[in-house]
Structure formats: C-alpha cells, structure tokens
C-alpha cells in the first residue's frame, strides 16, 4: 500500500479512471445487447467525437461544440450499426467483432487524413485537444485535492448511469431495446421495428463513447483512437463482470478496477514487483475461470 495519508487521493484518481471504464463499458453493453458483438471500434468512435468537439470548440462555445461532437459520434454509430446488421446471420459473433476492428482501422485512417496524423500509431498530430473542463484545482475534501476535470468525470458518469436506467425503464425506445435484446423475433412480431432499435443502440453507444473520450482527455497523454482502444480492455472486464447486462454492477466494477489499478501502480512497497500492473487482468481471468461457465452457457445459447 502507498503511504497511508495518500491512499484517499489514489482512490479518487482511480475512481476517475474507473468512471471512464464504466462509461465505455455502458457503451459495450449497449452494442452487445443490440448486435451480440464486442465493439472494438468504440475507442475510434469516441476519439472521432472528441476531435470533432475539439475542432468545433476553437470557434464556438464548449457546450454546442460538445453536442456537435456527440452528434458526429452518434452518426458514425448509426452508419456502423446499419452496415453491421446487414447479413449478420451468415457470419459468426467472432467475425462480426473482427469487422468492428475493420471500422476501427477505417476510422483511424479517416481521422489521420482529416485531423492530421502523428504517425502509424493512429494518434493525431499537433497540440492535445482542448479540454471541455480543465484539470485545475477545484476544492479539497479531507486530505484529497480534487480537480474540476475529476469532479466532472465522476458527475458525468453518475448522470449517464441514471439517464440510462431511466431510459431503459420508462421510455418507449428503451423498453423496445430491452425487448429486442431479449428476443428479437418476438419483438418483431409485437410490431417493434427491430432494425431501427438496433441502430438506435449504436447511436447511443456513439454518444456515450464521445462523452467518455471528451471527459477522459485531460487525464491521458493523448486521446486518439489507439489510446482509447487500450482502455477498452478494462471496460470490457467491467461489462463482462456485469454479465453484459447489469449497469449497476458494470459501473461498480469499472470503478473498482480503476481504484485497484491506481493503488497497485502507486504502491511503493510493490514497485519492484512486476505483477502490480497486471493484477487487474489476473483478477479478470480468475473471475472467468470461477464464474465463466454461466457466461459460457449463455454464449452457447446465443451462438445457436
């Protein structure tokens, strides 16, 4: 453990990073429920929204710029959702997931042309994108100094979580989305336009990915497609432990992974133990081996 007085600040820093995982995990759950794929292009979609926001923010206030970025990411989601859904029944879930990697490659390529490329890594050149909220000192709770960007990340994650819970419980589209996720055939018979619902889920995923990218950008050296895709593993772990279903468990797990990472990486006593950076992944594998059979059965049903 790090020096005891520092523990609270590491917990907060980890919770902020974990909120990012939670947001991306929400989007993964939406994509998975709609189309049964793990959307590897999510980092690309988020980065696209972020860069549209950053360009727009140069000549308009930040709030409309953010809306513009979200619209761009949502539109991209609509395109990907529409194309992915066509002919899906003749392929496998794995192949359709790899097809989202194709989208990631395409998005990275297009972004390199539109926004300028800093090299083969897919990160953009030039200055880091303008932040929606700067990472400056906000206030102090006990021993912990919080920055505005940290506060914003935590608040936004809570808002997105509550909005999604309300959306799935109380709106027509949200309920239709749940119906399609449970049983597409029955949903279609009941008069739900399944294709529209699926594309809507992808649009929502795009919006959330954009929000995640915009609010995480003050904390990462660069928020290009490659960096954001690197964060997808933890998000996937959170979504998986939430059984790609429960938003509450997903959110809690995402934050817990962030906190665990933060504590392990910062602990001086463990700084010579190479295992520290990899602990969260060991935890994931452990979870899968213990609880995976359940998921496996579900996956088998879904493959059929």
């Amino acid at each position: 453990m790090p020096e005891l007085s520092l523990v609270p600040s590491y917990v907060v820093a980890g919770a902020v990073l974990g909120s990012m995982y939670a947001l991306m995990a929400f989007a993964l759950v939406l994509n998975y429920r709609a189309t049964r794929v793990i959307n590897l292009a999510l980092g690309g979609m988020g980065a696209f929204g972020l860069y549209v926001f950053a360009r727009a923010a140069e000549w308009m206030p930040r709030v409309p710029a953010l809306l513009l970025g979200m619209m761009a990411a949502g539109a991209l989601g609509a395109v990907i959702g529409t194309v992915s859904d066509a002919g899906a029944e003749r392929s496998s879930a794995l192949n359709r997931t790899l097809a989202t990697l194709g989208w990631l490659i395409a998005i990275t390529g297009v972004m390199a042309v539109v926004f300028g490329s800093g090299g083969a890594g897919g990160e953009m050149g030039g200055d880091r994108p303008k932040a929606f909220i700067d990472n400056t000192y906000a206030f102090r709770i006990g021993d912990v100094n919080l920055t505005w960007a940290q506060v914003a990340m935590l608040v936004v994650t809570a808002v997105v979580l509550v909005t999604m819970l309300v959306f799935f419980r109380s709106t027509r589209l949200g309920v239709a989305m749940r119906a399609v996720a449970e049983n597409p055939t029955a949903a279609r018979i009941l008069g739900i336009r399944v294709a529209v619902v699926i594309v809507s889920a992808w649009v929502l995923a795009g919006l959330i990915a954009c929000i995640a990218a915009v609010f995480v950008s003050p904390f990462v050296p660069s928020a290009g497609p490659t960096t954001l895709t690197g964060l997808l593993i933890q998000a996937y772990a959170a979504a998986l432990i939430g059984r790609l279903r429960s938003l509450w468990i997903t959110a809690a797990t995402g934050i817990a992974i962030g906190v665990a990472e933060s504590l392990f990486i910062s602990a001086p006593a463990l700084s010579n133990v190479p295992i520290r950076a990899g602990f969260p992944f060991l935890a994931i594998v452990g979870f899968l081996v213990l609880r995976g059979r359940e998921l496996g059965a579900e996956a088998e049903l879904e493959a059929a």
Partner: protein
Amino acid sequence: MSGAPAETGTFGGPERATTSAGRALAPLATGIAAALLIAALVTPYWLFILTSTAVLAITLSSIVLLTGFVGQPSLAQMTFAGFGAFFAAKLLEADLPFPLVIPVAAVAVAPVGVVVGLPALRIGGLHLALTTLGAALFADRVVFTWKPLTNYPNGLTAVRPGWLESDVAYFLFVAGWLVLVLVLLARVRHSRRGRRWRAIMDNERGARAIGVDTAAEKLTAFATSASIAGLGGALYAFAVGGVNPLSFNMFLSLNYLAIVALVGLPYLISSVICATWLLVVPEIFRGSDAANLNLLVVGLGLILVIGRHRDGVLGMLADRLTARRSPPDNAEQRVGTIDAEAR
C-alpha cells in the same frame, strides 16, 4: 514469391479427402525446390523481405491451427511469438548449441499456451478471444517489461552461428521450417486428432457426447499453437539479430487474427497469403501512395466481408465453386462421420 511453397495442393480447404503418407512428400519437395529457386534469383534485400514473410507465415499458421481448425479464437498469438523469441535469445545466452535453441524455445512456449488456454475450458468464442487479449496485455505490461527476462527496454541480441550467417542460408533455413510446419498442420487436420478438433469446432457438446476429451484437446491445441507461434518468434529474433520487448504487442495479435479471418480462417494457405499481403505487397508499392492503402483495404475488407461470411474471402470463393456441384453439407451427417472416424 514466398507463396510458392504452399501453392502445391495439399493445403486446400477443410473438406479435402484424407492424405496418405506419400502425399506429404510431394509438397515437401516442391516447397524446398521453390525456396532454392527463390534464393538463387532474388536480391539480398528481397531475400530479407521474403525471410520475414516466411517467419510471419509460420506465426500466422498458428492462428489457422487454433482458430481455423479447433474454433478457439486467441488474441495472444504474438505474445507466444514474443515468448519464443525471448526464450531463444536466453537459451543462446546460456550457450545451448544452436541446433537445439530454436526447437527448445518453441517447445518451452507450450506451457504458456496451456496457461493462456485455461479459460477455454470454461468459455468460448468471443469471450475467450477477449480473455486471451487480457493475457496478452498482461504479458505486454508485466512479462515483457521484466528486465531479467527481456533486458527491458533494450532487449536482447540473437546472433546466428557461422553456418547460418549468410542471408541465403537463413532464408533456406526459415523456408524449411515453414514447409515443415505447413505439411505437419495439413497432416494433423486430416488425422484423428484433426477430426476431433473439427468436431469440437462444429459442435462442442456433440463432440463431448461421442467421447472426445474436449478439455485435453483444447489445451493440446493451445500448446501446439503456442509452440508454432513461438517458433515463428524465435526465427524472427535470429532474422533481425535481436528481440525488442515492444515488438509483440497485443494490437498486432488482434490485427493478425482479423487479417487471417478476412482471408479465411479454415484455410492453411491463408497464413502465406496474409504474410505476403502484409510484408511483400507494401514493398512492391514502396514509395507510392498505394503503400498507405494496404491497411485501409484490410479495414474495408473486414467491414464488407467477414461480417457477412464466416470463412472469409476464400470461403466465399469456395462456396461459389462448390455451390453448383454439391448441396450444402449436412451438419448431422458430418458429426456422424466424425464419430465413426474418431474411434
């Protein structure tokens, strides 16, 4: 072209008839002859490109084995290659005679494959792929940055012995390994073990019901595949004279699986086609804008093809060719055949 060794007929689609022992010799001889011809004809620069291509083809064939033959997707194949490369460099450092270095390094990766493959006993498909990605990330961050193993961040050197020093000699050495791997894999596919693997891929419960030990078979497949990938990694280390801790990151594994899936996971020749596409084609277009389009073509191919066809481009072509001749094959009948043959 380095594609020559595999264009000899044995490496066709998944539905080919059983091979006899003699049939393995023809492609073996053809492959070696083609390699000799290439070595005699091309410039040293191209020889290096083709050596790299053959090395990559070996690593990619480990993907065909695991995902195309057994249906177990893995995103840790480059991690296995990395282990192979580091083991080889370490063994050389420990003064193991060179002829033993590469085989021992390859075999030493097998336990790594078993460990990474353990989740396959509980989960499959997509979730297995992403779990192995977690393992790959763990290796990237933890194992390959561990100084005692990899001398991070400088890496290790891997100098070839005198008799392999020339580029021609090393190309022939690598080509020999490639042909050997492809011939062995083609034979495994049609062996009893290959049929058991096929049964697991097509219907795991069915395979279990007819008495296939699915756990043992899956772990065997992971171990074999890891060894082949490790072989590719070891050969890579000696091709470039060393091994860098950053050469084996998980994104490469993801891209390679995607490209092999695009061309056709069940087809052994996919490994050679993909390696050629990744290393030879960009060289041909070097300096022109077309070189940058390579990856974009892969991206578009993924979007347009494999979201719509399980077996990729080669699968689509095979469907076109066989559609007129025979009705689509019957899964029940196929399982029955495997039952009879697996006993």
